[in-house]
């Protein structure tokens, strides 16, 4: 319970403190101290009515105390301006939400990508350094260095704590969404629940950028995908959509994801995230409207120019009953090094009764398969022919 409150409030409190102090490290120290005090007091006194405001005020006072102590030490050298402490204002409405500024600082393209990811999870997501290290399979020491380097670069290069100018905003939002999506995809392989963390971050983004269509598009995409998480694996084996046990799907989250998708569409989202979310939503329906899925992949392919997307469109066309058109599309693609190109081609040829060619395609796919589940699956297919 306490942990939940902490996780929810961390980013908000830290953001306010960074805005107040203009220094990441000092803000983190003060926030940490405030949370430590809360951890000590709240179990006895109960959680205050407005925990966020309590924590922010306490953190601010901690920071001021610290500045005072430092000033006393340094008094003979120079005088630092020390703000007055705020004692009693536990009113949330007066505390500005500066998480948006914090997001743009953490996801600044001048930082290395791994630094952006780590900093976003730490500063905004409130994850401990050790947890982030575990999620990315590196030592805590390495992760600590990564965070320190990122914060040092923010300071040294003057990365601002600010929302970018309007003309830069679209590209900077893209950069933020890329970081969140990367976190989500790391979670796809199922270590620490990074998928859940990415969704939590996506919710923060949606709260602070309520009118940005692609923000909602990405959140919807992540929610609907993540809702199928438990059905995606059977032991070590990957379970394809067709064979997933739908009773394992989190239907509430799918419904919630669809509401977010509706909001994205209502805002006029046309980007890659919202189309992918629409595909995920269609694929969560029963029965699946494959012609429409194929049409969505067509739009996505137009947007991205990706041959892999075209391959997915072909698969959807085949599911819609038109294996001939699907094969025609596949034959135009230049994806010889891609396993799923050959397995899809094999499947289409099989459906069209061209078994010899299908076998050759499956064999080629088998050559490219690296994981045991994939190899098992393809061998089974070959035997069936």
């Amino acid at each position: 319970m306490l942990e939940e409150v902490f996780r929810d409030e961390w980013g908000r409190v830290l953001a306010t403190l960074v805005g107040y102090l203009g220094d990441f490290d000092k803000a983190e120290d003060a926030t940490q101290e405030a949370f430590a005090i809360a951890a000590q007091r709240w179990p006895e006194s109960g959680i205050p009515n407005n925990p966020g405001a309590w924590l922010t005020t306490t953190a601010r006072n901690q920071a001021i105390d610290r500045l005072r102590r430092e000033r006393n030490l340094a008094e003979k050298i120079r005088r630092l301006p020390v703000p007055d402490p705020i004692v009693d204002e536990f009113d949330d409405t007066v505390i500005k939400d500066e998480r948006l500024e914090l997001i743009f600082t953490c996801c600044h393209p001048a930082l290395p990508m791994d630094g952006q990811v780590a900093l976003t999870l730490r500063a905004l997501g409130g994850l401990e350094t050790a947890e982030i290290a575990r999620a990315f399979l590196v030592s805590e020491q390495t992760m600590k260095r990564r965070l320190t380097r990122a914060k040092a670069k923010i300071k040294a290069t003057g990365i601002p704590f600010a929302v970018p100018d309007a003309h830069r905003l679209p590209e900077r939002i893209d950069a933020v969404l890329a970081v969140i999506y990367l976190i989500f995809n790391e979670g796809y392989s199922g270590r620490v629940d990074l998928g859940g963390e990415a969704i939590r971050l996506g919710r923060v983004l949606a709260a602070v950028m309520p009118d940005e269509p692609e923000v909602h598009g990405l959140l919807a995409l992540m929610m609907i995908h993540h809702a199928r998480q438990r059905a995606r694996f059977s032991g070590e084996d990957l379970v394809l959509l067709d064979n997933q046990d739908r009773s394992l799907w989190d239907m509430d989250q799918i419904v919630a994801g669809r509401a977010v998708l509706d909001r994205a569409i209502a805002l006029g989202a046309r980007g890659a995230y919202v189309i992918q979310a629409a595909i995920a939503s269609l694929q969560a329906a029963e029965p699946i409207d494959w012609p429409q899925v194929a049409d969505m992949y067509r739009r996505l392919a137009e947007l991205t120019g990706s041959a892999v997307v075209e391959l997915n469109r072909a698969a959807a066309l085949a599911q819609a009953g038109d294996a001939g058109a699907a094969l025609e599309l596949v034959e135009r693609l230049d994806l010889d090094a891609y396993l799923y190109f050959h397995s899809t081609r094999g499947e289409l040829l099989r459906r069209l009764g061209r078994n010899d060619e299908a076998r050759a395609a499956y064999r080629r796919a088998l050559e490219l398969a690296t994981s045991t589940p994939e190899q098992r699956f393809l061998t089974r297919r070959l035997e069936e022919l």
Partner: protein
Amino acid sequence: MQYALLIYAEPGYDDGLTDAQREAAALDYSALGDDPRCVSSSQLHPVEAATCVRVDGTRTLVTDGPFADTKEVLGGLALIEADNLDEAIEMAARIPAARLDGVVEIRPVVQR
């Protein structure tokens, strides 16, 4: 904060430009020089004019050519005063070399 904008481009990067493009580039370079935030800006002679110096004990080693043998070479630099990195990026993005296959490296200057 003070930033150095180091302008890198391939030698002759502007050879293929039309007159209109060349004129636009010249205007942008002079706009940079005239910007009140610009402390100083200089164009460098080509790398053929470069000389490298090293000192080994008491001997001075002088060699011909630039320090690093790269495709893009340092062609000019500007020292600017900007509030933060984003402002420096805005100024760097207006430097013609940046849009003509070159690159502008931004380095904060150590303040003493």
